[in-house]
């Protein structure tokens, strides 16, 4: 592998606007229940925007009986939907709910990190849509920043698959609530 493309998510900069989530739907025209990217709340003040993490050790890849998953040389985990038999083993195995079952096609699909866009030099649709720059992509083989962290409180265990995502935490703030 020459690269490991991954996401950088800055929880302090994320305002929870969901533009990334819907920009993904706009780009890929997925039905409402097929959510390749999702914005949720880890706690009352921390948003998480998450998709497939293109793990170093993808569980989907390991469990799929049809060998529908492949890992590209840039680290992107792809799924070939035509090979999917709808067994949902990958859905059970993935700690991040990345594979999404489409009840209309009876097949699984997931975030492919907009590789057709990346192949022509464009950022993934979600990254392009992020108005505060909270979401980005990096080559994790090259990336070092002592301020970044590997996980956020409330994020699923990263030991199993080594997800290709790094974080910046929420900074403490001053609040004066009414007594």
């Amino acid at each position, binding site marked *: 592998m020459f690269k490991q493309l991954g996401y950088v998510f800055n929880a302090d900069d994320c305002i929870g606007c969901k*533009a990334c989530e819907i*920009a993904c739907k706009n780009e890929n025209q997925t039905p*409402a229940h097929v959510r390749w990217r999702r914005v949720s709340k880890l706690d009352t003040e921390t948003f998480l925007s998450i998709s497939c993490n293109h793990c170093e050790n993808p569980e989907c890849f390991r469990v799929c009986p049809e060998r529908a998953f492949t890992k590209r040389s840039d680290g992107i985990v792809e799924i070939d939907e035509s090979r999917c038999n709808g067994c949902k083993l990958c859905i059970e195995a993935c700690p991040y709910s990345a594979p999404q079952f489409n009840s209309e096609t009876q097949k699984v699909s997931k975030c492919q990190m907009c590789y057709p866009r990346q192949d022509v030099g464009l950022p993934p649709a979600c990254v392009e*849509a992020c108005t505060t720059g909270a979401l980005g992509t990096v080559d994790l083989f090259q990336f070092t920043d002592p301020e970044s962290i590997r996980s956020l409180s409330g994020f699923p265990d990263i030991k199993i698959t080594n997800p290709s995502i790094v974080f910046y935490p929420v900074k403490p*703030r*001053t*609040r004066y609530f*009414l007594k």
Partner: protein
Amino acid sequence: MKDGIYRNTCPRNCYGTCSMLSYVKNGRLIKVTGDPEHGYSKGRLCAKGYAYTQYVYNQNRLKYPMLQSPRGSGKWKRITWDEAYTIIAEKMIELNERYGSNLPCGYNKFSGNLGLLHYATEGMFNSIGPHTKPIGNPCALTGKVANHRSFGSHFSSIPEDMAGAKLIVLWGANPAVTNVHQMKFIYQARKNGAKLIVIDPVFTQTAAKADIFIQIIPGTDMYLALGIAKLVIKNNRHAREFLESDTEGWNPYRAYLDNELSIDEICHKTGVTMQVLAEISELYGSIKPVVTWAGLGIQRNMYGSKSIKAINSLAAVTGNLFIPNGGLYFMHFNVDDFPCALLNHKGPIHPSVQASRKVDISDFANSALQLSDPPLKLLWIASRNITQDHNFIAWQKLFEQLELIVTVDLYMTKSAENSDLVLPAATHFEEEDLHVGYWHFWLSVNQKAIPPYYEAKSDLQIARELSLKLNELSPGFSNFPADKEPIDWIKEELTPEILDLYSINGYEDLLRRPSKKAKHTIHKQNQKFRLFSPTEMRQNNVRAAEPPSPEKHEYKLITPQSLLKIHSQFESLSWLNKHHDDSYIEISNEAALYHNINNLEKIEVYNRYGQLVGVAKINPYLQKNIILAHQSGNNPINQLIHQQEHLVSADVSTHFYDSTVSIRKWSEAHV
């Protein structure tokens, strides 16, 4: 329509007025993106913007003109456009014969689409001579009038300049939800060392991002702004020279703060402690440049006008009003620079009726009911869902009086359900238009990118065709210039003065990129800044009712914008909103305890105007006497909102946040 990329502009009533690029293939909109040439949104949209393919090709969209008889029965029949125009034209002509003028015909149009060509509705009514028309602005009029008092004109600083501020203070504004593109300028400032302060009764998504969040009792912003100013002056941190020579009312303002307003009173009224007041005063007084943003939320209650003036005055006292990267933000009305030829279209003169009748849109139904000679008989609803108004009881009465209700909309809204006729409206991708923002200073076009969805038509096309039908049945009834094409109307807006203001040579330039108003033309001082006047405080002091409380079984109802809707728009898009999203009612810990209500339990919110069932969500940060509900078209919370008549006047917007409600556990017995 050719395949390719078209330039559109999101026409929603929103700060963004985002230019967007529309990707069209085989006559179909396949995706949208932001426009990198738009200097405010910088190539990005919001979640709602990215959902536009679903908005256009939504199975709930209206496809054909439809007639419902009887009204409210749900028995709809598809009719042709010609039949629809005939029904409307015949009614207008008959009413004219019955009453001798077109005064029985009126419309209620507001902000569903803010494109300049959507003034076609106004133009169409103007074209039949004196009629009944709405005036005012239910959303922002209070602030607009208050700003005129302060500045002599509308005033709002340049959004991109916020990136250079060192302190940013948001009063009742929640850009993380309602103005997402502004957040990047705020963050840019913060990366350069600026602090963000949010003052709000509600712990909003923006409040969660603030360096300092100050929770305040709703409606008391005026006291906090005056209190901060008092301490800034006391500590000798005020802009003495500017205040003495360039403002009006400095001496009485200062005397009032020094002698009549005590710190104790400020803390008591606002709920903010003395220490916090001192801390924020220190920041306001010692840092430059400071941005002050008076949000629309400030002026949704009866104290709105005074609060806006007091906040404006604070920006003046600290010497930040007119310095680079400082300033005062509200919204602007630069649309007034344009000819607005459709809005100002001159209709025929009536032999005896001098002018149209004006009805205050912030209390439309109630005001319209007062009209008797002649009564209002035909109502045209466009770019408007009346479930976002208040005083539903008056609306119901008005409906009963009306002989024909026509609604132009994209969806079967509650307004449409209450109509005799619905006419399917085009989305902005299916029509041409021109857009000027009310927050940023960019001008952009909207190209027709795709053919109309089924039989949908633009407001302009409807105006053209209805006027032809009117004249066919009664020659000379309308003087609407039906032969003018959309492009003619757009070019008419681009006068030499406008071209100069926006540094463009013509329409074609706007097809290449949006254009920003030249900086030196944005604010022209034509009077001295007027400080908050204490006489107003003394003479016109609205006596505050005792604040509501759980013990008294009363709560203040606050209904801010939610992230994935604008009022009732976008509600039926499955990418954005699940059906149940509407009905969450946020309550405080104290209210939950008092009424023994569990999280996610079904509750009723009610007052004497109506009742509504929702799902309780306990919000630990909510003040104990506030109920927070989301606006909705399907299950409209506004049915509980009723502005008292003695507080309605021609220069205020609707006091949407001044209503009181009660709650209880839901029980079948109450149904």
